């Protein structure tokens, strides 16, 4: 296994610029997340139909609760699947 010392970089790989994440609901002033609107909710679930975590979407805690409640209601009404593959 090549020891680390042999790997030399031209310039040290600095982590890519961390851009400030913001809560899209606060910014756009959305107050209520509708559970009937399937294609809007698709933005908050990944390919398998699972909810995206806050660290990826950057939403605030209050709206993450609203999103998760809306998604769970949509799943109950078969607007969104519980499990899916290749949803998008």
């Amino acid at each position, binding site marked *: 296994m090549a020891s680390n010392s042999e790997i030399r970089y031209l310039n040290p790989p600095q982590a890519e610029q961390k851009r400030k994440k913001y809560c899209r609901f606060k910014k756009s002033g959305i107050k*209520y997340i*509708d559970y009937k609107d399937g294609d809007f909710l698709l933005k908050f679930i990944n390919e398998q139909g699972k909810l995206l975590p806050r660290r990826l979407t950057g939403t605030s805690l209050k709206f993450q609760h609203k999103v998760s409640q809306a998604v769970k*209601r949509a799943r109950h*009404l*078969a607007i969104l699947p519980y499990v899916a593959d290749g949803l998008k």
Partner: protein
Amino acid sequence: MSKHYETVFILTPVLSDEQAKETAKKFKKQLGDLGAKIVSEEFWGLKKLAYPIQKKSTGFYHLFEYTTDSITLVNELEVAFKRDERVMRYLTVALDKHAAEYAEKRRTKIKGGEGVPFKQPKKEKSNA
């Protein structure tokens, strides 16, 4: 102070279009009799379900939006849903002020846009 409620329910696709509307009318009448004020009613028609319910992959979606004071009225409606085997699934949601405002905006958008399918809105000038 009357609270806003919104109920969405799914009917089995076995019924014809007419029967689906019939059952919806039955529930609407029950709501009316018990003293709820029905704000709006929508019929989304036959939609594909995201996963099969009772071995069926499509269903008639209906939406009722109403205001009432007594919570028992909502419970009776849900008991009626439970008893009726044509109803595959139902969900009743209490609307807070943001939700009610959103529903209001959504209704005007639908009326202004392509119109609520089942009820021919009278041709008022749409500002949307």
